[in-house]
Structures are given as structure tokens and as C-alpha cells.
């Protein structure tokens, strides 16, 4: 039964299909904002299907095992997070104590696998992409954990189902002043975690020819793409579970679509930041706001 939750629903397969739809919404909305037509509905699935029929090329000077294992580990860990987050949405009895912390730790693994895989590629441009991703992770993780402290302080619990039932009784965390500041900080950190413009520094296509993914081809690149699609579904749902209150079926889907819309509009209206601008923005711009929201939460506002 656990295997069913992990592999089929709500784990790998269901989140992959939902992620393909979310990725299509992103590309179609981007095209519409640029007054273009945009790709057909199944385009993300065509892309992944095409990647799985290409041959795998492994560079000569790479660390072979790490290079090949990183995409698979990224996919496995994001499937676990998908199972935990999805099960909490369906049936609150399926959580366990501490699953908030487990989810945030597991969400770090895809970025870590990108760093490992890029460092194992044996290409100087890939190592540039890896170092940029490392700096980006160092900068946004601080503000992210600061914003996550607010729901934990307000509900006195680190269990997702407790936070959701608290919000069902007392109104959503994003309704209070500390909650809304923390929610906005968390949304901007999510934009960096998804590696979307203005923070798509590690994968800067025009600057460093694909950056961290430059040597990946075929099915290995396919695993990374599936991981990106799944993160586009899981991260907003995770933030909505802890910040924006009860997630019933239709209201929950509307809230998720609103958050996806915010991500896409942010992506289309901003230029890409340089890595030192991004680090300064997270450490000295967002982290103080996170600290202010923690203080307000302790004071009870």
C-alpha cells in the first residue's frame, strides 16, 4: 500500500501528470503574455517522451557513477515529498510528527543533486553552474527557514495535519500580519527554489550554455525535467498547506492556480539577477523581513 502511495497516487505518476499540465499552463501563459500562440496541450509530455529515446552520452572526464545517479536520486526524493504532501491533503490521518521538517529537508535534495551532477560533469561551464547553484541555495534557504518558523510558532506544532486543522479552526496563517509577511518571503524563496527568472542563474541558457545541465542528454536529462515538473506542483501545494489555510478540493485548486499565476507573472516581468545581487537580496533584503515576521509571531500579532 505504501508503494502504491509512493509510485502511483499521490506520489510519482499522479504528480508527474499534474506537473506536465502545470508546465503547459506556464508555457501557454508565457506565450500569451508575449502575444504568441504557444505550444499544444501535450507538449511537456512530448518533450519528456522524446528525451527518453535519445542516447545517453557520458563525458570522458566525468565521475561516471555520480553523474548517472544524481537525476535518479532527485526524482526519488521529490516523489517522497509528493507522497507526503499529497496524502496530507487527502486524509489528515496519514501524517506523522515532524513531517514538516522532513519535507523541507527532502526538498533540498533536488538542488543538491543538480550541484553534484554538475560537479561530476567534467566541464568548466557546468562547474560554474554548480557554484552558482550552491550560492543560490545558501542564500534562499536562510530566508525560507525564517519564514517557515512563523506557522510553527503560531500553531506550536511541526506536523502538517496539525497546522492545517489549526487553520480550519482559527483562520489561515496568512490572515495575520506576521503570516502575510512570512508568506510573501516564502513565495519569493519558492521562485528561487524552482530556479525561475529572476533567479534562474544556475540554468542561464544564454550565458553559460545550459549551465549545470550542459552535459546531460537523453533519459538523464529527462529525469531532471520530470523533477522540475513535479516541483512546480509540489512546492506551491506545500506552501498553501502551511500558510493559506484549509485546502478543500475546488477552493484548493483555485488557490494553487492563483499561486502558479503569481509565479508565471513574476517570471515574465523580471530580468535575471546576477548571483551577487541575488545573494545580497536574500541575505540583506528578505531575511530581515523574515526576522521581523518571527518577532511579530512571538508577540502574537
Amino acid at each position, binding site marked *: 500500500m505504501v508503494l502504491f502511495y509512493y509510485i502511483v497516487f499521490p506520489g510519482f505518476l499522479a504528480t508527474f501528470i499534474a506537473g506536465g499540465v502545470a508546465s503547459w499552463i506556464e*508555457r501557454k501563459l508565457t*506565450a500569451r503574455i*508575449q*502575444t*504568441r*500562440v*504557444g*505550444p*499544444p496541450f501535450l*507538449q511537456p509530455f*512530448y*518533450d519528456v*517522451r*522524446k528525451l527518453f*529515446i*535519445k*542516447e*545517453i*552520452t557520458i563525458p570522458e572526464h566525468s565521475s561516471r557513477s555520480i553523474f548517472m545517479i544524481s537525476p535518479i536520486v532527485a526524482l526519488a526524493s521529490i516523489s517522497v515529498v509528493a507522497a507526503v504532501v499529497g496524502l496530507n491533503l487527502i486524509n489528515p490521518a496519514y501524517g506523522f510528527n515532524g513531517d514538516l521538517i522532513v519535507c523541507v529537508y527532502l526538498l533540498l535534495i533536488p538542488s543538491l543533486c543538480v550541484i553534484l551532477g554538475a560537479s561530476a560533469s567534467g566541464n568548466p561551464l557546468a562547474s560554474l553552474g554548480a557554484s552558482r547553484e550552491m550560492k543560490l541555495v545558501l542564500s534562499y534557504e536562510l530566508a525560507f527557514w525564517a519564514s517557515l518558523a512563523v506557522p510553527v510558532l503560531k500553531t506550536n506544532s511541526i506536523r502538517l495535519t496539525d497546522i492545517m486543522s489549526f487553520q480550519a479552526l482559527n483562520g489561515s496563517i496568512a490572515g495575520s500580519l506576521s503570516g502575510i509577511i512570512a508568506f510573501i518571503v516564502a513565495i519569493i524563496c519558492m521562485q528561487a527554489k524552482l530556479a525561475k527568472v529572476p533567479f534562474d542563474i544556475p540554468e542561464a*541558457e*544564454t550565458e*553559460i*550554455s*545550459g*549551465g549545470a*545541465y*550542459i*552535459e*546531460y*542528454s*537523453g533519459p538523464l*536529462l529527462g529525469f531532471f525535467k520530470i523533477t522540475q515538473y513535479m516541483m512546480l506542483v509540489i512546492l506551491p501545494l506545500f506552501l498553501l498547506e502551511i500558510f493559506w489555510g484549509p485546502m478543500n478540493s475546488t477552493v484548493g485548486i483555485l488557490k494553487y492556480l492563483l499561486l502558479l499565476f503569481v509565479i508565471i507573472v513574476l517570471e515574465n516581468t523580471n530580468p535575471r539577477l546576477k548571483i551577487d545581487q541575488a545573494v545580497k537580496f536574500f541575505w540583506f533584503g528578505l531575511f530581515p523581513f523574515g526576522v521581523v515576521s518571527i518577532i511579530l509571531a512571538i508577540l502574537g500579532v
Partner: protein
Amino acid sequence: MDKGKILSRSIWVFHFASAACNNCDIEIIDALTPRFDLERFGIKLVGSIRHADCLLVSGIMNEKGATRLKFLYDIAPKPLAVVTFGSCGASGGLFTNSYNFYGPPDKIIPVDAYIPGCPPRPEAIIDGIVKVVKKLRTVRCVM
């Protein structure tokens, strides 16, 4: 499992410009603008040859370009379609009698389609893409 058919739905293009006058390079970018919008066919420009399904060659092959073109073709994951762009790609264009002209790209790597013009109009580019897609869907195992 027909690889060509699966490939024809989502073609990622890597643009290799060697000693080009840049006119063709501008025309490639403007085929992606809203008026002609190639992304609705699943076509996208990628930054790395390892991600590419189509190698788009523009410009003259001099000594540097010829060695690098061969290298790029060798490291690209197959199945791959090669398309030469412009009259420089087809036969050398203006520069046929030049001192550093090593020959058109089809002397170095096998070419699947030619897009004529100096520079090709976007309509000619779309016609060339139709040729490539038809070839991918009918000929087995394009390399």
C-alpha cells in the same frame, strides 16, 4: 517505436554559426518572434549540443569551423537531424572562391535538409521545417 515520429513533435535546435555574416542568425531568431512563432510546433533553441535534436549550421566552414563542426556532430546524441541554413550552407554562397573556404557542410557531415536563401525569409524557414518533419516521419532512423 518510431523514433522519428516521436522526435518530430518536439525538436530542440542547436544553432552553430561559423564565420557567418550574422544575417542568417538574425533570421533564425525572428522565426521565433510572435509573428511566425515556431514554439507552437515544439521547436525551441537550446544552449548545449547535448540537448539538441537538430543541428542548424549557418555560415562558411573555415578551418576552425570545420573541425568544430565535426566534433559537434560526433558528441551530439543520436537521433539527430542536420539542417544547413542559407546559401552559405548549401554551396558556399558568395564565398565559394574564397581562400579559406573548406567546402560546404555536406562534405563534412551528412545533411538532412537545406534551407535556401541569402538570408532565407521566415516563410522559407517554415518550409524547411516542414521538410525536416516530413523526413523524420517517413524515413526510418534519421541520423
